[in-house]
Structures are given as C-alpha cells and as structure tokens.
C-alpha cells in the first residue's frame, strides 16, 4: 500500500520526517538509522553565522521528557551549503532546511542565500525556538511578528519551494498565529516546537540548565501537540500540517494524522533510538494497511461532525 503523500505540491515517499535538530548533520546516525529512509529530514536550524551554542548543562532528563537549551549550535549557512547539504543530497535524502534568525530582515537574507541551493525541497521557518533573551518572546507567540517573518521568507524563496512555519505549542491563540502565517504565504505549518520549560537541580539548588529556560520535548508534550494540530486543522483544514511533539511509535504518528497532520516528525525519540524513524514508518504502514481507505482515510478522521 502506498504511503506517499504530497504537501504543497511536493511528493514525499512517506509521512515520517526527522524533526529539526534531532538527526544531527545526518552523518552521526548509525547505519541502521537509514537516513534516506525518512520521508524527509528537516535540518537543524541553519543560522547566518557559526554559533557555539549555550553554556552547559544543555539538557536535563525529566519524567517522559527532556528539557534542553542548546542555543542552535552549528557552523552557519556557508558550511551548511558547502559540506552538510551536498552530503545529504548525495545520499538521496529529501531535505527540508530549517532556518532561524533574529529579525525578519535576517530571515530574508538567509532565505536568499539558500535560494539557489540544489536539493532543498522546502524551507521550515523556525519561529518558535524556546530559548530567547530575557524580555523577548519567540516570533511564534504573536501573529503579527510571525506573519512578518513568513512574508519575508516567502518573498525570498523560489516559487515551487514551499515555506512551512514552525509554531509554538504554548501560544495563547495558535489558530490566530497559524492564520497570520498562512495569510503571509506559508504553504504549511509545523506544529509544535519544544515547549518553554525548565528544571531545578535540587542537590545543587539551582536551575538544571546553564541557560535556565529551555524547551521540553518528548512524550510529555504529545498531548499539547495533539491539541495544537487539532485546533489548527479544525479551523484551516486545507493548510497542510507537519506534526511533531513526543512521537515515538507508529500509533503516536497515527494519532497526529487523525488529529489533522499530513506528515509527522520524529524528534526526541531519535536521541533515544536512532532507528526510530524507520520503525515508526513501518508501524504506521501496518496501521494504515489495516484501515479501510489506507493512510488518506486517517487524515483528520477523529474530527467527527458532532464533536467539532
């Protein structure tokens, strides 16, 4: 049975993606992880300049989750283009480039720099990095700010290369932000990023993370992600959604699809089990095969008229 899907005109072999920042550069995964076995790999968020990241500790284990504050470490867009992207493309990996910047103008410049790069199927605009300077908020917290960035990226991205906006699960009005992004030209939405959170190291009597506040990911946030997907799909069923947040089994992915997701990203689960992508894909294929109408019939199927 076919598992292929199309999002904004782009065909993907199946709907299980690697979430941004969770597959490294791709090279680190052991052979069993089958990088080319993902429907798409969403890269870690590419920044204009190299970034060293935040002080350690950068992660803390919490019940059914991880809080992390990495600070988007990476070598910057130039090394991505000369080294990391060609390596992925050579291996037949479908690449979605995630980008992050400080301002709409910087996002625009980054999009412009990626414009001519061969092998980028789509751009994911990271509007919801949970780690921000004190007093600031992620772009995704406010409809106007989010829409402004999406507009800037869309204008600087080639026609035929879809732009997806990655939103935050802890926004007051996620439907309002989603509408602003779609109105500004987003071809799809990625829901959700890690949720702003922190830990306390009780022995040391101080925050668990060097940066104090980070993002909570893993199964702990799956219900939040499901709610976000549900609300946005109910309001805007024609805008494709890539769901992420605590998915580690095919059944988790199926739940996201039933809530309204067209594709599902596996993130934190890859840290626990680098082979999780292919496993989730196979488990989802089994679920779809048992369902009359297959995978397409699962999309949004939990939205029964009487419940909406």
């Amino acid at each position, binding site marked *: 049975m076919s598992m292929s899907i199309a999002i904004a005109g782009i065909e993907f072999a199946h709907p299980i993606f690697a979430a941004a920042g969770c597959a490294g550069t791709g090279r680190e995964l052991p052979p069993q992880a089958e990088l080319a076995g993902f429907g798409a790999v969403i890269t870690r968020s590419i920044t204009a300049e190299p970034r060293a990241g935040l002080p*350690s500790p950068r992660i803390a284990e919490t019940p059914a989750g991880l809080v992390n504050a990495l600070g988007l470490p990476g070598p910057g867009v130039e090394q991505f283009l000369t080294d990391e992207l060609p390596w992925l493309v050579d291996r037949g990996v479908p690449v979605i480039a995630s980008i992050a910047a400080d301002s709409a103008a910087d996002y625009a410049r980054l999009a412009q720099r990626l414009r001519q790069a061969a092998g980028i199927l789509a751009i994911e605009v990271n509007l919801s990095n949970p780690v921000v300077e004190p007093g600031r908020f992620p772009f995704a917290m406010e409809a106007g700010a989010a829409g402004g960035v999406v507009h800037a990226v869309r204008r600087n991205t080639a026609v035929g290369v879809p732009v997806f906006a990655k939103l935050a699960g802890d926004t007051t009005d996620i439907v309002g932000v989603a509408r602003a992004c779609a109105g500004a030209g987003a071809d799809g939405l990625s829901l959700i990023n890690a949720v702003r959170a922190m830990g306390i190291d009780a022995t040391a009597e101080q925050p668990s993370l060097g940066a104090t506040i980070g993002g909570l990911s893993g199964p702990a946030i799956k219900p939040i992600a499901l709610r976000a997907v549900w609300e946005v799909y109910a309001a805007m069923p024609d805008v494709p959604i890539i769901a992420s947040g605590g998915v580690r089994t095919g059944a988790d992915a199926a739940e996201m699809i039933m809530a309204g997701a067209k594709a599902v990203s596996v993130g934190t689960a890859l*840290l626990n089990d680098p082979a999780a992508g292919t496993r989730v894909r196979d488990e989802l294929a089994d679920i779809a095969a048992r369902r009359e109408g297959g995978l397409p019939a699962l999309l949004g199927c939990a939205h029964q008229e009487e419940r909406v």
Partner: protein
Amino acid sequence: MSSAAQWPATVMAKRVTDRYAVVTLAAVAGAATARPGQFASLRIAGPDSALLLRRALWISEATAGGRHGGTLSVAVDVHEPGGAWLTSQPDSAKVDVIAPLGRPFSLPRDPVSCLLVGMGSASASLIRLAEELVERGSRVRLLLVGEAPPFGVLAARRFSSEIADLTGAAISATVLAEAMADNVDVVYSAGSAEQVRVVAAAAAQVNLPHQAAIDTPLVCGSRTCTLCAIPIRGRDGITRMVRSCTEGPVFAADLVRWDDLGTVPGDCLGAAAEQP
C-alpha cells in the same frame, strides 16, 4: 564516519562491586572494533521508558566473535537511575546498544613509561589501555582514585604490579607530582572534567604529554545532539565547541580550555551570535 552499529545485545553477566558494576553484553556487533577509551551507548529500558536519554558507558573489556558473537563489558554507576535499571536486568534480557563510539586513546609507537590515572567508573577505560601498553613493552603504573573502592583494581592487576589504590582519597597535586617525577614519559587519565583537570595541571607543570578521557554524564550517546560540547583550542589557535562524544572523549589535554569548561568562551568560534 564510524563503525558503530546499533544492536539488540543480550545481558550475559553482571558483577556488582559496591558503587560500580560491570555489565557484560553478548552479541554486540561492534565489539570487534572497540578500542581503549571508547564507550557504548545504551538505551535505558524499552520503548515506553520515561528515561529518554541513552547512557554513555565506558567499555572495560571487549572480545570479538566467539560463541557469544562479540562481547562488551561496560562500567555502570549503580546509584544513577539508568545504571540501577541496567544492573536490575536478568541475564538474557535484551538491551539496545550502539558501540563503539568516540575517539580512543592513541598508543605510543615505542615502549615508554606510562602513568595512568583513573577516577570513578571512567577508570574502566584504562584497563584495556593498560593491557595493550604492557603488550607493547611499555611500563604501566596505575593510580586509581574514587569515593568507593576504585573501579578496575582487580582487572588491572592482571597487567601491572604497580598499582596505587587510593580509596577514599581525592586526587591531589602532591600525589600526582610525586608519581610524575618517577621517570614518566606519558600520562593517560580518565575521569570527570573536574578530576581530569587536576591531572592536566600537574602534567603541564612538568611538561608531560597527557591524553585525557573526559567523563561527560548524561550525553545523548547517539551523537545526534550537541549536549556534551566543550571548548577545545585547535592547533590553528581557534577555539571551537567540540562534542566530546565524537571528537572525544579522549582529548590531548593541552588543547582543552580547562578554565572555561561549562561555558562558551567569548573568543570561541560562533560565540558572538549567542541568541536568535
């Protein structure tokens, strides 16, 4: 970039000694290529576990092939939740293993006089190192330190008669200076960053080459994150945040910015762009 393989291994034996345990796993695909200083990454509990971080554990012994299809022994801190889970597993339980990971110790070409300083469960990484150095004709002296009886004393006795067991002692500059004054050519150490740092200072004082295996707790162990990054000054003079799980865990100690561990130094590549 590595021969590391992910594999469902079988718990074959457990030896618990006070605070530490050695867990031996059979049917580990990557066991044949494991080198001293490398580690294994183990998934803690099954697919539904609430403990999401894999544990990076030092490899104390490795055998290739044979009846058990390659075995790896790893050192476990039984007071840590992941270590407690692992040591509670019955024989024949399945555990998801990725191994071997990381950059190993480099061995000298010619026989030399070596001082090996091991602290805590990281001492496990020195046991096979000692064995290989002795096989190559080197003189090996071990200094093993820990709160609990130091890990690996019994195993190490097979390879060297020069072992100082400093149970209950903290590593001290005086002890190190004394040990290093006794005709030492090369220093190898393994322990937490704070412990290894003391060894690095002592070795630097007398200008001895020193390779340090740095124990970074709670790394993802799957190499896909950047949680274990530490500041390393490259031979080109540029400081970079480097993952100790891939470029380490063994580093030339003179390249580590010991005073800046836990921070991102201001002159580090990419440090200027701190927040998006």
